[in-house]
């Protein structure tokens, strides 16, 4: 596959890549700390993964195999477009299979299949500052990070308990990285938070509009904030996936034509791999090829 002529490899110019690479190295050295970087205008609007794309473009090489997922799926608009972008500007080999990818760019999910130490996970981040809704002034949130003063976030979680009886935050659930920096894990469901902890894969986060990159090195402690009497817990479902019968994956609710609904894996590769291996759920009989 050849890249389009007229573009540098992976779209960005070399000086921009160097600047982002330097920021990424500092991000790895200070786990969870948001490193400012000179985010560039990309050929798609903010909110469509410009931060993740710039990180991916800066680390990507000819040997890499790229997988892009949006809400766990390889087939949604955002994922297809970003995959095609790198296909055109870098001539990249792409894949849908989690285990074949060396770089996985993701919006709002971590793949169900455990990652390995040769893989890099790149998150698209809309709001990198976890306290931004509690304290909008960046000068103040920087000071709070410098002092490791995260009482504000504990009060917010406490107010959830006072109002609803439990911590009502279900996505972008705040974490403490390496016991030091409070970090927004991007809008992944809290179901995925335990996968951040001691992951063998390097995890990089890019926020294009907010011009921040941050990182979790492999084998790093990542704790979800909680209280002794209200420990952190992940979502559970009443039923397994309706297509592959998985009981251990994050399920999306799908409204059916007949007015009913079913719950299916949000990770399309995980679900299809299980179906190919012969697992069937309540909504597809064994004789059907696929749903």
């Amino acid at each position, binding site marked *: 596959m050849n890249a389009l002529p007229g573009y540098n*490899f992976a779209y960005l110019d070399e000086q921009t*890549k*160097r600047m982002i690479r330097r920021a990424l190295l*500092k991000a*790895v050295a200070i*786990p969870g700390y948001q490193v400012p970087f000179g985010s560039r205008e990309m050929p798609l609007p903010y909110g469509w993964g410009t931060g993740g794309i710039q990180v991916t473009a800066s680390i990507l090489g000819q040997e890499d195999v790229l997988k892009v997922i949006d809400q766990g799926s390889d087939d949604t608009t955002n994922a297809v477009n970003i995959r095609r972008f790198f296909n055109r500007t870098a001539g990249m080999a792409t894949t849908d299979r989690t285990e074949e990818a060396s770089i996985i760019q993701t919006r709002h999910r971590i793949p169900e299949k455990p990652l390995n130490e040769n893989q890099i996970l790149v998150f698209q981040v809309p709001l990198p500052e976890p306290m931004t809704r509690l304290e909008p002034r960046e000068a103040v949130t920087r000071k709070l990070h410098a002092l490791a003063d995260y009482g504000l976030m504990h009060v917010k979680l406490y107010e959830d308990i006072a109002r609803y009886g439990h911590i009502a935050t279900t996505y972008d659930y705040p974490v403490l990285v390496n016991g030091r920096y409070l970090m927004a894990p991007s809008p992944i469901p809290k179901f995925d938070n335990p996968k951040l902890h001691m992951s063998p894969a390097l995890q990089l986060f890019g926020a294009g509009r907010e011009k921040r990159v941050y990182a979790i*090195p492999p*084998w790093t402690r990542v704790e979800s904030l909680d209280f002794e009497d209200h420990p952190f817990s992940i979502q559970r479902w009443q039923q397994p996936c309706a297509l592959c019968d998985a009981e251990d994956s994050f399920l999306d609710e799908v409204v059916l034509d007949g007015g009913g609904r079913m719950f299916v894996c949000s990770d399309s590769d995980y679900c299809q791999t299980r179906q190919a291996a012969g697992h069937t759920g309540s909504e597809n009989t064994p004789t059907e090829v696929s749903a």
Partner: protein
Amino acid sequence: MNDPRPLPTSALLPGLNDPVHDSQRVFRIVLSALSNPASLHALADLPVPPAPMHAAAGAVLLTLSDYETPVWLQSPTEASAAWLRFHCGTPLVTKAKEAQFALIDQPLAMPPLSGFAQGLAEYPDRSATLIVQVRGFSSEGPLFSGPGINGQRRIGIDGLPGDFWQSWQNNRAIAPLGVDILFVSGTSVVGLPRSIDVQNKPARGGV
């Protein structure tokens, strides 16, 4: 053309053969070295930099430095200064504290780690990255632990001053401030970010 310094064109050594893909390759190995600290990473197909630079040190500077990054050389030579200016366009500084990258080729005579940019409480990323050229690496040495290491890892880094690990622990103590180090020898590189703890109980002998 009022610059009196002649550009030593005839003596200028080449930089990266394929700047786009070679720098990407070198960067990924440096990224891997810093995210898997205290482990040995090998670079290949590197250009020959001017003395006293090791091949890996030259490649790291070609990959990461440019007009935005002041570089401090412990032993500046005419050839290495011209090489960096030509290939990277980097400003060379004489005060260690002003440097974003520092190349140390005589570790025994290196300035204290606190003599380099430490970052600010609100911006700990504004700190120096040191490239320290050492004699070599071995399997016997201090125990390292921290982010990027699953449990503990041991590596020996030869040719460091006797009190180096004490000053590293002082650097560690001010984290998230402090410097990050890339040890290089020949074409090998070992990363040591500020987040890493060292337990210097040498199994046999010492430095």
